[in-house]
């Protein structure tokens, strides 16, 4: 097994420590005792302590993903909290938020409690996101107050966008009681219609029903205005279009309670990739044009988009090895995240590694009000050790998830998370 319990004392030696909270970068060692950070700096060690040689590597905060689907309860053949944890650790993640579109959905305090209890036995920190409406049906509010008490950190109807504007207003107003974000997958169902991919020249060439960027941006606009009006926290997931970026940019200038995420696949692919009819690229919202991709990268650089989230969405082979109309939406993304993000943003776009790591650590934690100062002495160690320069081809053996629906298979990655430490467990990709 790639995961094992940490020794009571372990020393990470001679790494480049990047602390995205203090924004410091320095050469040094980290001593972990009984799973907690005990010392950081130049540490003189005795010979009988277990060491991990980190020379040439980066030691940083464990990554945090605000948007994953671990399929439990209901589709444990696709993913479980346990297998999802392994996928997360393999990708350097120590903390994730799971979406409520399970079966049954996470729409009650009891369902939230089920996740919290199960998560307690998992090697990473798993936070449930509760459904906004009962059965995600868009009609009646869930017991958001009680669910928050049980441990729900945000509320979302996930892939079933709240179509009714007055329902969205009610949800945002009510969320002010508990001051957690509402996350709405922005997509106007009427405009989306049967859309299977971005509406553009490629969908025209392929004869596939298009899903216009307007389906997203019109609802983003509605949600931004409603959040402004209700003075509530709104988080916009997986932004995919240039039009949405423009709207978010404008609103963020006057409203500090708005946040947004983007996925690695929207930063890496453009619609041309769909020319092969690869069902692994069928995803909601769809992969859009190169110009949209450029806008998303620009939005990251400007801070208009706050963080990276994978929207890790496991599906069985049968769900994907079919015709395009019947294939399920979604792709897995935890294991491939860093190698793609680092390749696009650091290697191709010239961003600083510290800033890119922030997109995976302090920025998402800030949105969810999680502890951000992970290198504080005495804190339980949540650490990722990575090599930002190693190049490799992404293959099935890099996947820990129960599902393998990744369009990144066969792509060249740059950068790899090698060790992940969380809850006194050491995960190794070596």
């Amino acid at each position, binding site marked *: 097994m790639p995961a094992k319990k940490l020794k009571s004392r372990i020393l990470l030696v001679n790494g480049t420590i990047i602390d995205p909270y203090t924004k410091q970068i320095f050469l040094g060692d980290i001593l972990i005792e009984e799973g907690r950070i005990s010392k950081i700096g130049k540490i003189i060690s005795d010979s009988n302590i277990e060491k991990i040689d980190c020379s040439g590597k980066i030691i940083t905060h464990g990554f945090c993903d605000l948007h994953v689907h671990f399929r439990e309860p209901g589709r444990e053949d696709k993913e479980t909290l346990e297998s999802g944890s392994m996928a997360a650790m393999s990708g350097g993640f120590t903390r994730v938020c799971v979406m409520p579109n399970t079966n049954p959905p996470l729409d009650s305090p009891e369902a939230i409690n089920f996740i919290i209890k199960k998560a307690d036995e998992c090697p990473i920190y798993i936070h449930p996101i509760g459904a906004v409406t009962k059965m995600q049906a868009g009609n009646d509010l869930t017991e958001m107050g009680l669910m928050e008490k049980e441990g729900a950190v945000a509320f979302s109807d996930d892939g079933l966008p709240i179509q009714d504007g007055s329902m969205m207003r009610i949800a945002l107003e009510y969320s002010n009681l508990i001051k957690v974000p509402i996350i709405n997958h922005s997509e106007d169902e009427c405009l989306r219609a049967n859309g299977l991919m971005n509406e553009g020249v490629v969908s*025209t060439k392929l*004869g*596939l*029903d298009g899903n216009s960027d307007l389906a997203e941006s019109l609802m983003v606009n509605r949600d931004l205005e409603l959040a402004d009006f209700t003075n509530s926290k709104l988080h916009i997931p997986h932004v995919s279009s240039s039009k949405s970026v423009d709207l978010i940019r404008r609103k963020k200038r006057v409203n500090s309670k708005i946040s947004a995420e983007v996925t690695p696949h929207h930063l890496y692919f453009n619609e041309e990739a769909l020319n092969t009819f690869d069902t692994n690229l069928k995803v909601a919202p769809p992969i859009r044009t190169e110009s949209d991709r450029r806008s998303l990268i620009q939005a990251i650089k400007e801070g208009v988009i706050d963080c990276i989230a994978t929207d890790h969405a496991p599906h069985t082979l049968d769900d994907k*090895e*079919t015709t395009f109309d*019947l294939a399920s939406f979604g792709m897995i993304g935890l294991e491939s995240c860093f190698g793609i993000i680092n390749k696009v943003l650091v290697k191709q776009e010239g961003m600083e590694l510290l800033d890119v790591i922030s997109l995976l650590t302090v920025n998402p934690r800030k949105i969810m009000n999680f502890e951000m100062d992970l290198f504080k002495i005495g804190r339980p160690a949540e650490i990722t050790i990575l090599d930002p320069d190693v190049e490799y081809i992404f293959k099935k053996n890099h996947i820990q998830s129960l599902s393998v629906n990744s369009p990144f298979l066969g792509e060249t990655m740059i950068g790899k998370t090698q060790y992940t430490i969380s809850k006194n467990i050491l995960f190794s990709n070596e």
Partner: protein
Amino acid sequence: MLKNKHLLGLAGYPAEDIQTIIDTAFNFREVLERPIKKVPSLQGVTIVNLFFENSTRTRISFELAQKRLSADTVNFSASSSSLKKGESFKDTAQNIEAMKIDAVVMRHPTPGAPKHLTEFIDSIIINAGDGTHEHPTQAILDMMSLHEKFGKLKGLKVAIIGDILHSRVALSNIYGLITMGAEVVLCGPPNLIPHHAEELGVVVNHNINEVLDWADAINVLRIQRERMGKGLIPSIREYRSLFGITSTRLKTLKKEIVVMHPGPINRGVEIDGVVADGDQAIILDQVLNGVASRMAILFLLCSGKKINEES
């Protein structure tokens, strides 16, 4: 020999291969004029007609082409709904191939289904229409018919008229005609022409009279009556008045243009009965050329397989 193993569509298909198919089709057209219309070219080759969507003329045209070439053929029809309930597309395809066949002619309601089929089985795949994507054999027979009439395709002015958005015939014709050097104009109600159509290298013009003035030939698409109920077309009366190919319209033109239609025709909707039956229409030549074109395609793709396996 053709460069590609399969015929999935005309997007990116080489011009010289389209020309080879058309030239070969004219040879087979001669065979079809003989008293005995059968040649032994594909003896011993087994072809499955895998139809996941209803089709009369395309299926009969393929079947006839296969019989004229002496191939062994099997027909499989399944509505996509029964498929959704039971066996998956992949299982159906793999089961049929396990019975040792050489080629599959497939019609399917979903764009890309023939491409997916190439990932599941090794046989030669010929696309007989995949949803609103392509219908390459129809475009080849249309181009053959234009070639027969004009002696060339390069520089021809061809208008495609009707519901372009839901048409695989239009898309394959656009690809094929542009590759062969023809000019293409699309005409129809704005909501039935893809928003990004001009990026395909065609001109969009909603004025039917201007388009008819410009064209050497028109390809009139069937207006599917089921579109009417969905608010896409206000009424038959309105459509006929704005886009119908009426004898009155054709009479006002200074020249005679060639009229094509892939069938089945809605007389009095997209085209007048008199026009469809008139001298300018080559609709029945298209049907005959369809058999010849499909013979050419089957021969060019499958005879290589026969030789390889014998040697």
